[in-house]
């Protein structure tokens, strides 16, 4: 009984603490359009510059740029084009790069299925979503069927 109420009192404190500790500052936001093959190449260059700016290791740079390339291709191929927002992250302890891909396409009916290795609706290898998820530190999908989707990823400097 006593333990339970103590825990209940502690929870808001812990939550506040965590929120302050991990409060992310987002800055230097840039939006890049994604319509053509060339846009994907430009984005790779942009992302590489962002990764270099916070001195990500070469392996982490490569992972982030590769994930960006996969997600940008999805935005164009499946979403019918869209845009990506690039942001620098800082949580007080470390720096990172965030990317938000947005399209107004058909969306995804079954996100779990779309995140399965080898599943594809477009004749590709089915590694775009599932593979890029493994290449980044944070990965979130928000989608509504018929309205579009947003994929948010982040990579932190180790």
């Amino acid at each position, binding site marked *: 009984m006593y333990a339970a109420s103590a825990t209940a009192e502690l929870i808001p404190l812990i939550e506040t603490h965590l929120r302050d500790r991990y409060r992310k500052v987002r800055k230097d936001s840039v939006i890049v359009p994604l319509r053509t093959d060339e846009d994907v190449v430009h984005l790779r260059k942009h992302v590489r510059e962002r990764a270099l700016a916070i001195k990500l290791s070469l392996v982490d740079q490569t*992972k982030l740029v590769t994930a960006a390339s996969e997600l940008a291709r999805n935005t164009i191929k499946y979403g019918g084009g869209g845009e990506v927002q690039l942001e620098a992250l800082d949580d007080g302890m470390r720096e990172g790069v965030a990317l938000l891909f947005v399209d107004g396409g058909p969306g995804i009916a079954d996100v779990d299925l779309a995140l399965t290795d080898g599943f594809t609706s477009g004749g590709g290898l089915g590694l775009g979503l599932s593979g890029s998820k493994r290449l980044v530190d944070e990965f979130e999908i928000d989608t509504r069927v018929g309205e579009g989707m947003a994929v948010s990823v982040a990579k932190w400097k180790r």
Partner: protein
Amino acid sequence: MERIPILRMGDLLLVTIQVDMHDRLAMTLQDDLTQRIVDDSAKGVLIDISALDLVDSFIGRMISNTAAMAAILDARTVVVGMQPAVAITLVELGLNLVGVKTALNVERGMALLGKSFR
């Protein structure tokens, strides 16, 4: 239209990819290489990717497909010079380039194809 040059050395074709390829350029290279294997009666294809700092699933698939098409046309393909960070990323992405022979550098790739500079 932009194209990646394909060099002929005896019965080998040599390609060095030195630009960040967009998808259409990768597809053009695949088509060009397949055509050149037939036109030049090539027995081997050496693709040097040492200048590439990224191989994503599209480029990876292009390389796999090219190797498969070359094999059907009786030519062997070796991919050389992959950067370590690219190899790490490819495996994590889930792409294992099935059926593609690789070598650390051009010299070893030539050796794999049964050729030698000496």
